[in-house]
């Protein structure tokens, strides 16, 4: 058996080989209570360097906890000129015109190298049924812009409808702040039925879940993320470095799958 010291060294070396690209990173003050309430951009970059995460897609907490219009603007200012950070906007459906005209907003977003979006239907109180969100979802599908959505921000039936109604839209499910073990009986049939559904791995802490998803649905369906600075990046890093699958599959999860989705955006 390896000693604990040897395991620490191996974990550190294995991380370096995989060039981790984090899909779920945040800047700004969080509503999550924490013993280490990090929020500043330089603090996040410092942590990324420490944990061996080379690049990240980031959102701003103002976009989620205050208003997307303000948070997205702040995000661009914060990450301007920082190569290892790429923005992820938070959007609303266009009917209320809070974000201006959707086409213009998305064109502007893409021109600023933002290649992914999040929506928070429950926190922001809107419906993702077609009567409310078809225009938004249709536009994202048209441009193949990856859509990140939290499991607790929607219903499983609605998630199924989005994936089915917009089959060319890459939908990435994230599972922050919840007991994810409870999701498996929803998640597995959804992954089975919806080929455009991906799973971000930061909270895949149900025993053997990550290995089972790779075995049944392929490593192509998993996207590396950490939910830094709310959750401990070590957890998702080791789920990949010590996953029960091949090095090629680990590379896909660590960075290649996300790179492929971003490259697939029609600018």
């Amino acid at each position, binding site marked *: *058996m390896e000693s*604990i010291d040897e*395991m620490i060294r191996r974990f550190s070396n294995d991380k370096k080989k995989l060039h981790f690209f984090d899909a779920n990173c945040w800047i700004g003050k969080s*509503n999550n209570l924490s013993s280490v309430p990090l929020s500043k951009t330089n603090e996040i970059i410092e942590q990324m360097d420490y944990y061996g995460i080379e690049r990240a897609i980031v959102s701003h907490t103002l976009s989620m906890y205050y208003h997307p219009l303000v948070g997205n603007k702040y995000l661009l200012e914060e990450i301007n000129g920082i190569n290892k950070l790429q923005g992820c906007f938070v959007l609303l459906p266009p009917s209320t015109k809070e974000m201006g005209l959707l086409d213009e907003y998305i064109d502007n977003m893409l021109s600023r190298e933002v290649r992914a979006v999040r929506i928070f239907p429950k926190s922001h109180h809107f419906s993702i049924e077609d009567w409310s969100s078809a225009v938004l979802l249709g536009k994202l599908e048209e441009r193949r812009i990856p859509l990140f959505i939290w499991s607790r921000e929607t219903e499983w039936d609605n998630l199924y409808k989005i994936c089915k109604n917009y089959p060319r839209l890459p939908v990435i499910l994230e599972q922050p702040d*919840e007991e994810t073990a*409870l999701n498996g009986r929803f998640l597995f049939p959804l992954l089975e039925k919806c080929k455009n559904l991906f799973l971000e791995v930061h909270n895949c802490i149900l025993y053997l879940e990550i290995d089972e998803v790779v075995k049944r649905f392929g490593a192509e369906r998993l996207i590396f993320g950490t939910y830094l600075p709310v*959750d401990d990046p070590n957890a998702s*890093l*080791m789920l990949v470095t010590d996953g*029960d699958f091949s090095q090629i599959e680990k590379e896909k999860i660590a960075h290649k799958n996300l790179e492929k989705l971003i490259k697939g955006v029609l600018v």
Partner: protein
Amino acid sequence: MNKEIIDVSIVDAHAHLGYSTKFYMPDISLERMVNIMNKLNIKRICCSHLAGLSAHHFEYAHRETLKAIKQYPRRIFGYAIYDPNFPEDSLQSAKEYLTIDGFIGIKIHPAMHTYAVDGEKYNPLWRYAVDNNVPVLSHTWDATLQTTYPYELVPNQIYAQPKLIGRVAQRYPEAKIIMAHAGGRYRGHLQAIEVAQRYENVYVDICGSTISFGLIEWLVKEIGANKILYGSDLTWNEPRAHLSRVLGAKITLDEKNYILSLNASNLFKFNFQ
């Protein structure tokens, strides 16, 4: 560190056997469990069976735990289960199984058994644990409203708040109690830290469904590495997720050795078996 202690093999102090009613578990087989233990260099694992926690079937749980211990001796160890809804029967059953080599402690789950951990129906357990120097692993969790959507409150967790363990420790200061999950979430962690600081024989473990940033370093700073145990919550949660939080923590190698190995080995007397 005591240089005479040479066995710093990893001990998982909090794991389970069996199914959960509420969710899908990809593989609960003992073979897979031992396979992943081998891969992660986990030498010993201490398990309680879920049939005695999510349901009241402690007799079945004890029988199945014994089977696992016999199938993988010196690798799989067992907790007997005390159920306050059946105090006499469950204590009697626990006593019988604790005479068998491989049973190392008692597990209680006040939230699932819906009875407060400081309630009088637990008194026979605490008396037995003190008299026989048997460690007790108790589920603990935060029972306050959460600060993010949907502001979840799990009512049953009110029975398992760390501050209630503090009341038990005050009455039974010699009882060796491990507060599972170190209180679960932030406000529970605050309570757990206060209790572990105040009472010499109260420990925490780090497993569960939360993987908060900086928690390991915070616990080490507040209560010291010699009061923290590694646990995975397997077959519920991932051993890799929790192991990595210690391996990659910003603490010393000595502190990691205590958390991953020495504290549990001392508590369960593994080095003397």
